[in-house]
């Protein structure tokens, strides 16, 4: 075991897999000598060489198309988007090529797209987005979003070993804030398995990504007031471990869904719909959602804070559900 930050854990997972399998190569902007905008790949080109750590021109669609094809040909490319926001430039190659190739022709596409996502650090409209719902809507893609160093490393290793395109959203605001003991030995966190980050009997909070930490803070506060929250970290949005939260809701009878992306059309809406369809009889209160306002993520601190969910907003919604 070693204490690792979320960022170091991602880096460790990537390095481990590159040491394990020569088919793992990296493509992205400024990832070689510069080590990446966030330094995830610092030291990689020195260890693995420029043939495996490829600095690309600023051309997301081009290098996503190339990486997807190299995957079909048997390599296991991991693509770094400098910011998850820029994945929009490669949307077509992801949703119309990588996602559909296996269904159309039976060809596996073992490629990972890493997207540093999320707000909270004054990045403004183009460096703060959470675009996971653009991709959970597309059959043929797997989408994950870890919240802890342990999960970050284990999910990345599982994603790289998976034979399908996996979009791996890592939350930038967690990079250097969150640290914990992480095993040095090989392990994976399987895709499609949620994690109960805190057990409780009064309210189920379903969340993922950076909001896991806000929800845990709320659960702590509510515990001191006598209400026990169960915090479910989905970790994987696609495939989705729906039994994790359905089982929990049947126990608590109350559900709150928390996600940092925009409220409308966000993945939490899907979670709420599943709870309504499959656990309606168990509910004692309407399912509530807490998410970002439906506006672009603004730059100024006062504005960004007004848009993003936080512990206070989650706390108020949780109290509403508990008191219904």
């Amino acid at each position: 075991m070693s204490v690792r930050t979320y960022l170091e854990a991602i880096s460790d997972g990537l390095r481990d897999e590159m040491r394990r399998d020569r088919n793992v190569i990296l493509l992205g902007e400024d990832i070689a000598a510069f080590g990446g905008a966030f330094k995830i790949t610092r030291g990689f080109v020195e260890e693995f060489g420029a043939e495996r750590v490829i600095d690309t021109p600023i051309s997301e669609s081009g290098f996503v198309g190339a990486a997807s094809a190299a995957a079909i040909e048997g390599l296991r490319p991991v693509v770094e988007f400098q910011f998850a926001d820029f994945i929009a430039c490669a949307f077509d190659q992801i949703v119309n090529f990588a996602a559909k190739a296996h269904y159309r022709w039976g060809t596996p596409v073992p490629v990972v797209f890493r997207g540093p996502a999320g707000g909270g650090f004054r990045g403004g409209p183009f460096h703060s987005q959470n675009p996971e719902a653009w991709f959970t809507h597309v059959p043929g893609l797997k989408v994950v979003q870890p919240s802890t160093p342990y999960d970050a490393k284990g999910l990345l290793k599982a994603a790289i070993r998976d034979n399908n395109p996996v979009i791996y959203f890592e939350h930038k605001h967690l990079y250097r804030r969150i640290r914990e003991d992480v095993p040095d030995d090989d392990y994976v966190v399987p895709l499609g398995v949620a994690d109960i980050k805190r057990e409780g009997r009064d309210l189920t909070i379903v969340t993922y990504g950076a909001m896991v930490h806000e929800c845990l803070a709320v659960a702590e506060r509510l515990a001191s007031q006598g209400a026990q929250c169960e915090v479910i970290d989905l970790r994987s949005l696609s495939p989705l471990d729906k039994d994790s939260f359905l089982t929990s809701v049947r126990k608590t009878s109350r559900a709150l869904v928390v996600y940092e992306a925009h409220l409308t059309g966000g993945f939490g809406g899907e979670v709420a719909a599943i709870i309504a369809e499959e656990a309606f009889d168990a509910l004692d209160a309407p399912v509530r959602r807490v998410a970002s306002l439906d506006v672009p993520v603004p730059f100024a601190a006062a504005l960004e804070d007004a848009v993003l969910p936080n512990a206070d907003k989650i706390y108020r919604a949780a109290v509403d559900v508990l008191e219904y």
Partner: protein
Amino acid sequence: MRSITPARDRSAVSEPRETPFLDPALDRLAIRPDQPMAEVELLAMYRAMRMARTFEQKLSALYRQGKIVGAVYLGMGQEAIATGVVSLLQKDDYFSTVARGLAGWFMRGVEPRHVLARWLGKDVPPGHGRELGLFLADLKQYGLAPYHNGSMASWIPSGAGFALAFKYRREPRVYAALTGDGATSPGDFYEGLNFASIHKLPLVVIVENNCFAYSTPNSLQMPVANVADRAPAFNVPADIGFGNDIFEVRRLAQKAIDHARRGNGPYLLEFKTFRQRGHGEHDDMAYVPPDLREFWERRDPIRLFQEYLEGEGGLAAADIAAVDGECRTVIDEAVAYAEGLPAPDPSTVTHRLFAE
């Protein structure tokens, strides 16, 4: 042919023009190889082209009879390009083309009956009814690489990706991406060629310039006269050829393939040609001036090839007629075969979304 050298000389870039229909330096009404070719090789190419033409005439009829639903897209008039390029590929090379390059599929050994079964939506591999007859990918059997969809620019990046894997593994293989003039407008065309050229990847991009992107003429697609005029921006060598002359296609393609296989990076070929049918069979081609159509129909690639074979080529007319007859038989049998196949089982529709 014309060569575009990757020079900084601005005079290499020519202004677009409306006439003539084809650069007189490229135009010809009789074709011949540089060196004599074996009869068996000539007949194999002729067979692929005639098979594609016969297949497409039948496909058009089936569409009009309502036996094929959706739309069909034909490549009549462009058969020489894919045939010529594919005739030069090694067994482990990859290529991609939609069914507009049907003759290339046939040159590679794809069986007409399997293509027809796919147009009819039957339960046949590799798609089992999930994909149109327009698209085919089968790496294992034919080296036909998976690509995106009808956005044909998108397989320049993917071609670069396959080529990247070849280079990474030190395999002397090439990727031939057959695409069209319309595909040179989206950014993917530039992103793919740029990346391939930086890393000297074994990618040959073949642009079949058939005058129109659906209904939009070259003059509204690009501010230069030739797609190849853009190659110097990527430091990629390029040639322009007459795409209805299969011997010219082979001359230029051999040079491009050798260049890429030797590790010198990508090569761009532009072949001037003409789509004798609409974008799809639903398209009446009202946008095509009659004299343009007549000009190109006088230069039909199969007719030019056949005239060479029966003339200078010294083949017996009876041998050519025998191939024509064989093609009709194969296609008739293909229809009977494909119509008799089962449709896919709806209970399988969610299968195979993900790989194991």
